[in-house]
């Protein structure tokens, strides 16, 4: 209820009662209320005509990187005696230096500039509204406006630089790259020996084999091409546990970002599917633009609950080219095993990067014998599941999230092991 309405109501109640009962003292008592009301009405602001511009020092930043926001408010209308301005921000963002709200008087054609520094966690934030509330001297009559002022801030997940991740999908694309293509041709790695064909360079002739036969033989090398890589990020709420105010999903995001960056840097065609509350699909593509698209997608992804996508059985495999490489980033649930086996059976090369939920949660629990025993039991169960998955031919990287992801991959692939658990 408006403040002016309340004062008006009280004033007129007094006046009417005073007139009805013919009591002068009641009418006299109405005078202060009348004065208050008329003073407010006399200086009531017109509709504020404000022109607002906002600039950000950076629109794409890493988590918790400070960003300076500068806002300029110009009054194109009459003088505003009391103007409350607030640059509306997401609750996830925190203001560090300066303030995003001000209480000022702004004269006609005058400009008020203010700046503040904010920082925030991973996410996509729209900074598109400035809230302005103009009022009279007493705040009795107010005019409230939401003024559009376009701005956006993307806080991308941190991207760890990985050394080359060895993948060997059955099928590759036609363009030259760094993935062994399982076919002979120009390359570095020895692939086989075949009959000499006119046009073969002399250095390709395998003299040892040719000496034992009557005809010439040439060495053949394995072609290296780019491949299709589909990264699946498990965004199911039930598999991404929360502990100590932290989510394991954030670690999955870091892994997915690092893997996408690495695969794209190798020249591969990479797509991203976030499998959680719904399917969020980033079409496969190459290069820096695709990296940007994937980071955009990862910046605002959150885990969610869906009855349909509760298990991995509804994974839309048709989105991935046949016999391509699939990389699943997931803490893994017991019932995911079957889906992974089915993917292998369909000819996909499957790699699983699994942030370790047991170590993650244990890190936030008190070190008591009961906790240690429970963790041991759960860890044994998980070990069994991971062993079964590995036996199905799935390349597996188990990641203890207390160590950096690049370190985990270095340990996993450093000794030429095709998938290992640390």
């Amino acid at each position, binding site marked *: 209820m*408006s*403040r*002016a*309405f*309340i004062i*008006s109501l*009280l004033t*007129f109640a*007094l*006046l*009417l*009662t005073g*007139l009805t*009962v*013919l*009591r*002068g*003292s*009641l*009418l*006299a*008592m109405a*005078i*202060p*209320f009348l*004065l*208050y009301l008329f*003073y407010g*009405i006399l200086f*009531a602001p017109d509709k504020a005509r404000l022109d607002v511009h906002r600039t950000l020092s950076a629109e794409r930043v890493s988590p918790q990187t400070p960003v300076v926001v500068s806002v300029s408010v110009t009054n194109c209308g009459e003088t505003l005696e*009391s103007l*409350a*301005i*607030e640059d509306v921000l997401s609750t996830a963002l925190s203001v560090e230096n*300066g*303030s995003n*709200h*001000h*209480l*000022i008087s702004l004269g006609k054609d005058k400009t008020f500039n*203010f700046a503040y520094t904010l920082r925030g966690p991973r996410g996509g934030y729209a900074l598109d509204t400035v809230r302005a509330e103009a*009022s009279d*001297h*007493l*705040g009795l*009559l107010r*005019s409230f406006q939401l003024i559009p002022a376009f701005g956006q801030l993307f806080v991308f997940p941190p991207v760890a630089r990985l050394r080359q991740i060895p993948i060997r999908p059955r099928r590759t694309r036609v363009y030259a790259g760094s993935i062994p293509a399982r076919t002979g041709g120009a390359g570095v790695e020895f692939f086989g020996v075949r009959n000499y064909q006119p046009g073969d360079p002399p250095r390709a002739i395998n003299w040892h084999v040719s000496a034992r036969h009557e005809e010439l033989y040439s060495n053949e090398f394995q072609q290296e091409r780019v491949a299709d890589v589909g990264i699946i990020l498990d965004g199911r709420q039930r598999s991404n546990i929360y502990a100590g105010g932290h989510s394991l999903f954030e670690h999955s995001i870091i892994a997915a970002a690092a893997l996408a960056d690495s695969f794209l840097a190798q020249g591969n065609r990479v797509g991203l599917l976030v499998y959680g509350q719904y399917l969020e699909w980033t079409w496969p593509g190459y290069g820096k633009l695709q990296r940007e698209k994937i980071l955009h997608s990862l910046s605002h992804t959150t885990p969610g609950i869906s009855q349909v996508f509760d298990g991995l059985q509804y994974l839309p495999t048709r989105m991935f080219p046949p016999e391509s490489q699939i990389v699943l980033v997931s803490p893994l649930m017991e019932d995911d095993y079957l889906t992974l086996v089915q993917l292998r059976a369909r000819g996909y090369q499957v790699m699983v990067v699994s942030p370790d939920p047991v170590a993650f949660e244990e890190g936030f629990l008190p070190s008591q014998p009961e906790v240690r025993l429970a963790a041991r039991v759960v860890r044994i169960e998980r070990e069994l599941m991971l062993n079964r998955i590995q036996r199905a031919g799935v390349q597996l990287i188990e990641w203890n999230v207390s160590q950096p992801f690049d370190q985990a991959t270095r340990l996993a692939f450093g000794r030429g092991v095709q998938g290992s658990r640390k």
Partner: protein
Amino acid sequence: MTLFALFFGIVMGIGSLAWGYAQAGLPLFARWIAFFGAVWLVAVWQRWRWFAYVGLLFNFLAAALGLWLLNLSPGWMFAGAIGGLLAWDLTDFSHRLRFAASDEERRAFEMRHLVRISMLAMLGFGLASLAMLLKFQFNFDWALLSAIVAAFGILQLVVWLRKRD
């Protein structure tokens, strides 16, 4: 500064009403008014902003009923009603001050507002007291004229407020 003024408004309003009722030989009423004042102070401490509306209504009704039915001293009753109005205004103002980004902004607005509201309160109290001093015969003709003016005023106000929206 605003908080101090707010406490002053509550204490002045409630104290005046309680004193007025006590002087008229109604100590029980005075005690209840004082108790309400204590609750209001607790409400300020707990930041129950809605309570300011209850306080305004309470002070207003206590003063109006005191004047109308009990014929209490107008000075104390006016002071009670004005105290309630002050406290109600300052509760909202202190909430509005949350927009101030710095102490300078805050102090500038506080000073201006407190000067204005104090002037208004004093002027209101002075005019009301003057009106009581300059008593004149309030007959039916005056009442009719005042009623017509009041109705016209309400009409104008409603039209103006609707235009603004």
